[in-house]
């Protein structure tokens, strides 16, 4: 009961005041998943239960089957690899299938680097859009604007790739050249192994990728922000909070876990993006050097570049082995995201 008295006094500027406002209201009892214990179960119930269970099991079986298939095809190729699969980053030589040279070091670095760069660009923008659409924009505008952001997700990735290389890259060229010239003391803007003027760099690719993952992050974040309890917002307003203070004290603490899981969904898409990166990124012959002006391959674009000439199971197996690593990487990223979100929820 003392808590209830506190409600009238918190300073809305305090970061935790949203939680104080929320805590007095007891959580509803969770609904039992088996309320009809002992009751007679009808045929419809049985069928529905069977369908639901079947769907649940099917997805596990499919994922396991993909993993097994990748392993089954990758192992014979790995046995014929003359390099260390995880530490070799040079050119793949798969012409002689009895002694192949391939490894994923560069692929892993480029994939992670371009995806994280895209995420860093997209996350603040997505947060801004979601906040604007749910808290600031007039109700009449937020619907159409939300649809427009969602439409970005409907653009095929080949279009993003062509746009990125033929339209965006020339526009970015002066900016990229300036960064390369004036900020090259920072490793990110050093001259890399792809031509800055040519535009086929991680810099361009990351910006294209950021636009591509923006709608996913925005959509998830918006959906969660909309769920912010009306009562909390009204209480904050009643205490004299400004719009920004309302966002900071109620919407952000409430929606943070949704924002993070949206970002992780976006990261998952970025890791697996193929065609747009295949078109934009230049292939390279030299090792990756952690600059935005490098080119290179991601796992997916490397496979796509060669897929039309797979005429041998060992050659295909080498690329499938790379696919297996991407599969595991995506799996790990998703698990980490789940754990992070679950950790916050439990607090």
């Amino acid at each position, binding site marked *: 009961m003392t808590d209830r008295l506190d409600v009238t006094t918190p300073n809305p500027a305090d970061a935790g005041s949203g939680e104080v406002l929320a805590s007095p209201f007891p959580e509803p009892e969770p609904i039992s998943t088996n309320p009809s214990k002992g009751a007679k179960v009808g045929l419809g119930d049985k069928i529905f239960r069977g369908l639901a269970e079947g769907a649940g099991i099917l997805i596990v079986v499919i994922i396991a089957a993909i993993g097994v298939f990748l392993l089954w095809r990758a192992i014979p190729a790995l046995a014929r690899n003359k390099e260390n699969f995880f530490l070799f980053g040079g050119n793949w030589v798969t012409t002689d299938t009895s002694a192949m040279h391939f490894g994923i070091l560069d692929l892993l670095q480029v994939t992670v680097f371009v995806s994280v760069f895209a995420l860093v660009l997209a996350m603040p923008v997505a947060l801004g859009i979601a906040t604007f659409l749910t808290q600031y924009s007039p109700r009449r505008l937020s619907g159409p604007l939300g649809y427009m952001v969602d439409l970005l997700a409907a653009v095929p990735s080949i279009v993003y790739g062509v746009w990125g290389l033929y339209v965006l890259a020339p526009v970015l060229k002066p900016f990229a050249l300036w960064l390369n010239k004036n900020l090259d003391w920072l490793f990110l803007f050093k001259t890399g192994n792809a031509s800055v*003027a040519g*535009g086929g760099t991680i810099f361009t690719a990351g910006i294209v990728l950021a636009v591509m993952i923006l709608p996913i992050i925005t959509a998830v974040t918006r959906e969660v922000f909309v769920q912010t309890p009306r009562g909390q917002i009204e209480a904050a307003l009643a205490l004299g909070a400004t719009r920004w203070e309302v966002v900071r004290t109620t919407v952000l603490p409430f929606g943070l876990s949704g924002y993070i899981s949206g970002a992780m969904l976006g990261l998952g898409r970025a890791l697996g993006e193929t065609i747009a990166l295949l078109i934009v990124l230049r*292939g390279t*012959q030299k090792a990756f050097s952690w600059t935005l002006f490098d080119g290179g391959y991601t796992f997916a674009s490397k496979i796509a570049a060669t897929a*039309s000439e797979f005429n041998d199971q060992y050659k295909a197996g080498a690329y499938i082995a790379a696919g297996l690593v991407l599969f595991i990487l995506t799996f790990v990223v998703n698990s980490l995201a789940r754990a992070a979100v679950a950790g916050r929820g439990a607090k």
Partner: protein
Amino acid sequence: MTLSATAIAALTLTACGSDKNSSSSSSSASGSGTSAAGTASAKADCGGKNSLTAEGSTAQQNAIAEFNKVWGQVCSGKTLAYNPTGSGAGVDQFIAKQVDFAGSDSALKDDQVQKAAARCGGNPAWNLPMVFGPVAMAYNIDGVDKLVVNADVLAKIFQGQITKWNDPAIAALNSGTNLPDADIKPVYRSDSSGTTDNFQKYLAAAAPQSWTKGAGKEFQGGAGEGAQKSSGVVQAIQATPGSIGYVEKSPAAAAGLKNAEIDSGAGAVALTDDSTKAAVAAAKVKGDGMDLTLDLAALYASKEAGSYPLMLATYEIVCSKGYDADTAAAVKSFLTVSANQGQANLSAAGYVPLPDSFKERLLKSVDAIA
């Protein structure tokens, strides 16, 4: 039930019959049309089944499309369904009897020869080089309108041993041209392609002392940046000052890129219809049978004056015998029409029209298909 089934069968039968009638009458009409127009002296034999299937190389895709169009005009009702899935897939499908012939960037390998013979009922399969695609060395240097290179210089550029445009080795070939003190940005094809394979084979044959990286469909030079497909290479060269790259003639010409001339030892040769035709005419065939596997190393290393050696040779892989009569006649008809009437617009599509001497040799092999 039985009554309706027979009725349908009868309907389809009559439909088939009328279709055959109309197609045969129109084919004779168009046949007389072409001879009246006098476009080709060779008679078109339009026997065999109406639809052929083939699969394979993407490099000859546009040439096949042109051949198919002409074949349909000369022999009404005939079509070829060509599936450009890549040379490897094409040969596999041919061996598996899924398609009538294969288009391939390379002749059958030793282990494929046996399998192909088994597919052809114990008869050897022949490699017929029908389509030659010249490869341009396109470059982008401001103020340099004529650039001469040779295989040795190219090998060193694409291995990163020559890195400046005013390198003495390049300057020696370009006396009188003011070459800038700028970095060379080599551009290669990053996807698996026959163009890369032939470019590397060319360097290995014409500059064996300099090119040590072998061949293969993936670029192994160790320098430069890779672009996706021909369109990507063209874009990269356009966008990157100081760049040079290998790309098929037609996309380079369509984009207005400048092409380097190649000096094989007997003076600089520009990429033209005549210079490529000269190279094809001088091409040697391994052995003297009906199988026309080319001696590419000799073609690439040729020092003949006026011939442009850098090109992609692609084969049609066919059974010498072992087709059923209908298929054999159709394959012969298609190849004959392609080698004759099909050559007229080939240059516009970016390929080398076959020189007469080479065409005769090719037709001899086509005629021998039974």
